């Protein structure tokens, strides 16, 4: 389990993080590797400093946002969240970036599949094209940053385009990395109308949803009382259905 540090020729042992049966992280391998430094002298031979190189691996916990990244990577779906607390002034507000808890009432929000909304309605709100990047960048340059707006979503989503040139108001659709890195960089955007064969290698559109994926049909004709009972027993879909009925009244 060895690997070479980028552009250095330095070989370090690999690393692996797992979750223990107690729920903590277990780290194994090279999470921190020391690399020798060098002194810095000026022309007159005065010591002006020293370099202190190191190789360090961070872990990012996804916590309550893990569901978004799982759906992104495994299902090629985009999840938003929505506040369902009818007492909250933010009741009904939908969020992408996915946030687990409502910024108004602090209660856990409900995940919503918004993939079709993205395919049908996403537009570039603003953008910038940058020729430069910082250390550790993995995106091809120039980077076409876009902020995307979706009707019904109270926030925007920052992402990037891998095909075409961005402009304000441009209709874009999401594409997903087939060999995922389990990061937000696995999601990118292309102009509406891009054909599958035009996508660069390693990217795909999401599959079209099938009818059996739409649980809305399951609750047709179910009385309100029965729905409340089901929701109280923890049926998430029943809770959603109550929410929609409330909204439509």
């Amino acid at each position, binding site marked *: 389990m060895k690997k070479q540090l980028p552009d250095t020729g330095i070989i370090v042992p690999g690393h692996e993080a797992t979750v223990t049966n107690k729920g903590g992280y277990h780290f194994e391998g090279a999470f921190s590797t020391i690399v020798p430094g060098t002194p810095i002298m000026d022309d007159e031979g005065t010591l002006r400093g020293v370099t202190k190189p190191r190789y360090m691996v961070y872990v990012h916990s996804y916590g309550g946002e893990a569901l978004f990244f799982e759906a992104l990577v495994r299902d090629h779906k985009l999840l938003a969240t929505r506040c369902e607390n009818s007492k909250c002034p933010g009741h009904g507000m939908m969020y992408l970036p996915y946030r687990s808890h409502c910024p108004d009432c602090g209660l856990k929000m409900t995940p919503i599949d918004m993939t079709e909304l993205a395919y049908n*309605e996403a537009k570039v709100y603003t953008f910038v094209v940058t020729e430069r990047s*910082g250390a550790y960048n993995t995106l091809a340059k120039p980077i076409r*940053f876009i902020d995307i707006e979706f009707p019904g979503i*109270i926030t925007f989503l*920052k992402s990037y385009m891998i095909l075409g040139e961005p402009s304000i108001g441009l209709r874009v659709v999401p594409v997903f990395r087939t060999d995922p890195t389990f990061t937000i960089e696995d999601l990118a955007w292309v102009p509406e109308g891009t054909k599958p064969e035009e996508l660069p290698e390693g990217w795909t559109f999401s*599959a079209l949803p099938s009818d059996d994926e739409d649980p809305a049909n399951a609750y047709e004709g179910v009385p309100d009382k029965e729905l409340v009972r089901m929701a109280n027993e923890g049926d998430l879909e029943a809770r959603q259905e109550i929410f929609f009925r409330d909204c439509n009244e």
Partner: protein
Amino acid sequence: MVRKGGKPEIRSRIRLKEVYYEEYPIKSPKGRKGMQMIQFSDRQLRIPSLSRPVYMITGGMSQFGRAFPGKKTEELCLDAVIMAAEMLGMDWLELKQFIQAGFYGHFADHFGDQLLGEAVIHDRLGLDPLPGIGIKTGGATGGYTMWTTMMAVASGMIDCGLALGWERMDEVPTDEGNHLIACAADKDWETGMGHIYAGYYAPMSTRYWELIAKKDPKFRETLAKIAVKHRGYALNNPFAHGGMKITIEDVLNSPVVSEPLRALDCCLMSVGSACAVFCDETTANEFYNRTGQKPLRVWIGAGTHTLRVADRRPMEIPLLPHETVEMYTGSEHRYPGFTGFLAARMACYFGYRMAGVQNPLEDFDIVELHDAFTISDIQTYEDAGLRPYGQGNDYVESGDCYHTNPHTGQPGKLPSNLSGGLIGNMHAVGATGVMQAVEVALHLWNRHGEIHGDPNRWVAFGKEKPNDWVDLQVQNAHRGMAISHAGVGSHVTCTVLADPDHLFTGKEVVA
């Protein structure tokens, strides 16, 4: 549209339901175009008040530069506090006898590879074992450091406190620096994309440039005028590290950073330190009787907004004392969207009312604004109410923002960034907000020319004082303001300073 893609291998853990936006009811009647708005209670929007008046008695700065291999950070901090002491005719040992706590603004621990850098500085200044605390709010670190110091003095917890800010940005290569700054964006949703802050910041200016400025070449020239002005003023400032004699054409022909911004539209990346000393009225009088330097009243309003710009939710425009609802009725732009900085507006909303400011353009004599980029400088004119939203460029075109109005040859109505600002003077992040307050204070003390024109200072900084050096002191300056602003607008403060014999016409909010 036909889409093609592999069937998902693993079903999501929840049963997903397709939802369309038409299904959402709009409960808030206030929103434009039916958009739901965030709201706040009257209690949350209560105007902050100080339990007792707070005064700024002195301030100081180190030299600012791109790199100082010959000085450690603590040496630069000592330079600043020694200048603050000298401003009062004291040495640091003497001034230190008044200081009961240290408040330290330092944005990026990882730039200096030193956690608790504030503890290092506190020790090197000889303030152990007195209380000391670090404050970090991105580009607004300097402003928030003073905000914290003000609260400590106002509460009676201390009578005199040191607000000191610094930044060390020369110890890593630029691309690593870009990455480290990009770590101030959301690590899981933004940083990985490009590892460069421009990717998060510049889309805001694109939106302003296309929708408000409408890509007007005249507006582009207005931006260039700001760069010319700030780099030009910096030539008269011995502390500054970015003074340049340039033309509008130079700016327009400098390399593109991201449309419409060119290299000369962007602020500096600096190393340096700045400090201010705040105290209560009794201590202020003691200083005044001893040194003759008039203490200045200080009020600081503070605001915040989402670290991820993408998380901005719409709301009604919070109005400043001189604004009316009618000014923005029928506006087609979502507020704040990406074209305004809500945190800056809230800082002014609170700060102006704390101090009794009624109209910033009329009430202030000098301002220092956060010109990280020429276009964000214009956005700040609007957030701070120097012009209504959408009309910020007029503050430049009217000549109001100049020391001497180029159209009339008379003093500008409200000169801004005579220090050179972030574009011409410095942006040593943790020090910037403090530097701005010190620069404003120098005008109110009528010492701007003395401090900037001192030939010995130019020599000490290894520079030659220009033959055409100009004294930019604003005559009869009694009241000023400084905006300390974090990158995409996550934190902003509005520091209001006033000669106690020339307070504002409005009613000050008193606890």
